C-alpha cells in the first residue's frame, strides 16, 4: 500500500526510520541479534558450500585486517574491519538479496544503533574472544565445512548477545555507583552511616 505514497520522507543518504526507532527502543537489540543469528548461520553455511577462490582470498584478507588493526591497538579500525569480515561472509554466500538486506543493517550498526563495537575491541579479554570466533568462522568456510561454519557463526552471535547484555548491565551499575558516590548531594550524609 505504501508504494502509492511515493518516495516521501527519505531523501538520499538519510538514515532509515527503522534505525531511529530501534535506537529509541534498546530492547529491540535482542530481536536484531536473534535475526542475525538465524541469517548469519545460514549465510556461513552457504559460504562454506559456495565460496570461490576469490571469496576465500577476500575473507582471509578481511580477517587479517582485523588482526592487523588490533596489532596497531586501533579499536576503531578493528571494529570497521570486523564489519567488512562479516560482509565478506555474506558475499561468499552468493545470495545477492541476503547480502543487500544484511548490508543495510550493518551500515545501521556502524552508526552505533545497537551497541558500539569499538568498546568491545577496547577490552583485551573480549577482543581475544571475538578474534577466535572470527577465526573459527574463517577456518570452517575455508575447510568447506557447512555445519562447522553455521555453528561458528551461531556461537559468535550468542557471545555478542552476552557481551551486549554485560556491557549494558555494567553501564547501569556504573550509574548506580556514581549516584551513590554523589549521594551527599541528595541527603545529609553523616560519617556514621558512611
Amino acid at each position, binding site marked *: *500500500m*505504501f508504494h502509492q505514497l511515493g518516495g*516521501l520522507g527519505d531523501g538520499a543518504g538519510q538514515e*532509515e526510520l527503522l534505525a531511529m526507532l*530501534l535506537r*529509541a527502543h534498546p530492547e529491540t537489540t535482542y*530481536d536484531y541479534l536473534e535475526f542475525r543469528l538465524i*541469517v548469519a548461520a545460514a549465510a556461513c553455511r552457504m559460504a562454506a558450500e559456495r565460496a570461490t577462490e576469490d571469496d576465500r582470498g577476500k575473507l582471509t584478507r578481511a580477517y587479517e585486517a582485523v588482526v592487523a588493526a588490533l596489532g596497531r591497538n586501533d579499536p576503531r579500525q578493528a571494529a570497521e574491519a570486523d564489519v567488512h569480515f562479516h560482509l565478506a561472509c555474506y558475499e561468499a554466500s552468493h545470495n545477492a538479496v541476503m547480502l543487500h538486506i544484511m548490508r543495510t543493517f550493518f551500515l545501521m550498526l556502524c552508526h552505533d544503533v545497537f551497541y558500539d563495537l569499538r568498546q568491545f575491541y577496547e577490552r583485551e579479554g573480549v577482543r581475544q574472544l571475538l578474534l577466535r570466533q572470527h577465526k573459527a568462522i574463517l577456518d570452517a568456510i575455508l575447510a568447506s565445512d557447512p555445519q562447522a561454519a553455521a555453528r561458528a557463526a551461531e556461537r559468535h552471535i550468542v557471545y555478542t548477545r552476552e557481551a551486549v547484555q554485560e556491557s549494558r548491565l555494567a553501564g547501569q551499575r556504573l550509574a548506580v555507583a556514581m549516584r551513590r558516590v554523589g549521594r551527599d548531594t541528595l541527603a545529609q550524609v553523616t560519617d556514621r552511616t558512611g
Partner: protein
Amino acid sequence: MTKDRIRPARLAEAIAGHIESLIVEGSLRPGERLLAERDLAQKLAVSRPSLREALGLLEKQGLILSQRGGTYVAPLLGDGFTAPLIALCERPESTYDYLEFRSVVEGAATYFAALRASHVDRESISERFRAIEEADARSDPDEEAEADAAFHLSVYMACHNVMILHIMGALANLLRQDVFFHRKKLYTRQGVRRMLLEQHRAVREAVQSGNPEAARAAAEAHVTFTRAALQEIDRADKDLEMSLRRFAVIDEGR
C-alpha cells in the same frame, strides 16, 4: 547532579511516544491510515489539541505522513532500502535468492511462532487461514494472493521478533508489487493453488499445536515448493515460447 533532573513529561510527548511504540511493535503498520483526529483522540482518551501536537512531533520525526487529507504511517524501510532491492530483482536469478533468504527467515519465524504465539496470535493465524480457504473456494486468485500475504504476516506477528516483522513486512510489500516474481502465475494454476493451501494448513497446524520443529519444516517445505513451482512454470513458459517461435518459422517458410 544536573543529569538526574526530573522533567515533567508533556502529554503530547507521552502520546507521541505511545504511538511510536505501537509502530515499533507492529500494531500500527507502514502504509496504514490513522483514524481521523477526533476518533483517535477518543480512542486514546486524550484531548484533540494534545493529539494534534503529538502528531506534529511524529510528523517532524518522519514517522507519519500527511497525504491526501489523511495521516499515514511512513515506511520504516524507505527508498534507500527498497530501490536497490528492486533494481537487483530485475535479474531473474534474484527470485531464487529471495526465496532462499525467505526460506531461512520463514523457517525461523514459524519455529518461534510455534514457541511464542499467544492465544490471540493463534486465533489471528486461524482467521487468516480461513480467509485463504474462502478465497480459494471462490477461485479468486487476487484475493487469495492477498490472503496469503496476510497469513504470513500473522505468523511474523506471532514470532514476536520485531526485526523479523519489519523486514519481512517490507519484503511482503515488495512481493505484493510482484518485485520478486509474478504471484498470479502461481495462483492461476489449479494444482499449485491446492498444494499451497495444504501447505498453509500444515503451517497453521504446527503453530497451533506448539511444535517448533514441525513448524520450521512446514514453512521450509512451503518455500521450497514455491521455488520448484516457479521453476516449472518458467520452464513451461519457455517451452511455450519455443513452440510459438517454431510455429512462426514454419509460418514464414510457407
